[in-house]
């Protein structure tokens, strides 16, 4: 069932998404690490709203939980909306900051997301040696 965009999440609200270490890549063209495009390619993309964590007195890194193999990236809610995607609050019992970016993610959105997203907790913070062969 399609979810409806909800402007209780403002365009300048920061959305947080966990990125598993298997989806960290180094982009030579950009000269930096970033999430793979696949980190954003899902119909119902779960995110946390940073403002809700901070309003509750929690650090935004609490979006990582206790998961050691994850980095945390961020983008503003206005980005998916600019690509006609819905941003919807979806609080869960264990996470009142949970929200969903709903809709089929086209390549233009995915490319802009992976090129402009900002690490809140970067791969180098998680593992300084992550680019070395296993």
């Amino acid at each position, binding site marked *: 069932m399609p979810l409806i965009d909800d402007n209780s999440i403002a365009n300048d609200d920061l959305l947080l998404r*966990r990125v*598993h270490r*298997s*989806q960290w*890549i*180094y*982009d*030579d*063209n*950009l000269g930096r690490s970033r999430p*793979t*495009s*696949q*980190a954003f*390619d*899902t119909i119902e*993309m*779960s995110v946390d709203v940073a403002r809700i964590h901070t309003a509750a007195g929690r650090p935004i890194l609490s979006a990582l*939980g206790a*998961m050691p193999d*994850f980095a945390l990236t961020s983008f503003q809610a206005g980005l998916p909306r600019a690509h006609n995607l819905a941003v919807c609050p979806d609080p869960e019992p264990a996470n009142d900051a949970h929200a969903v970016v709903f809709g089929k993610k086209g*390549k233009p959105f995915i490319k802009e997301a992976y090129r402009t997203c900002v690490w809140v907790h970067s791969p180098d913070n998680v593992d300084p040696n992550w680019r070395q*062969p*296993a």
Partner: protein
Amino acid sequence: MRAVTSAVFVEDSPRNVALSRSPQKGVGAVSEASVFSHACTTPPWRDVMSKHVVVLANLPDNWDSYGASSVSLSIANAALCFVESVSTSRTPQPAIVPTNDGKLQVEWHTQGIDLEVKIISQSAVSYSLEDSRGDFPSVEERELRYDLTDLQRAIMRLTARANVG
């Protein structure tokens, strides 16, 4: 695996030369030709890549914490087959990443080329291509079966660029 393998055995593949000679030269020659070809065309990162794919194939369900599916063995094999088939000893190392629907994606982001190849099955891939130098028209998303010639051309070009300077 059959389609990917056969698709990459086109005229520009050094590996094809060795393999196509094999039936005509007997068992000993087959072995030597194959080993020679392997040594000339195998990328130095091949073993590292293979180990990495094994790691990805062992990810459990929900590896991304958002409900992703695990990667099937057939997809892992198809990805390895694809990478080995389109690469030479000078091809830059691609990234291989899991997708949330249990597939793998092979990516190059170097030399001005952004090339992403999603391994859909043992006989199909989809790819997107962007070249900031304009040698290739952008491809937003295209599915290929059997004939990977366009894809190979892009990989050969990025290999050539990587070895120019």
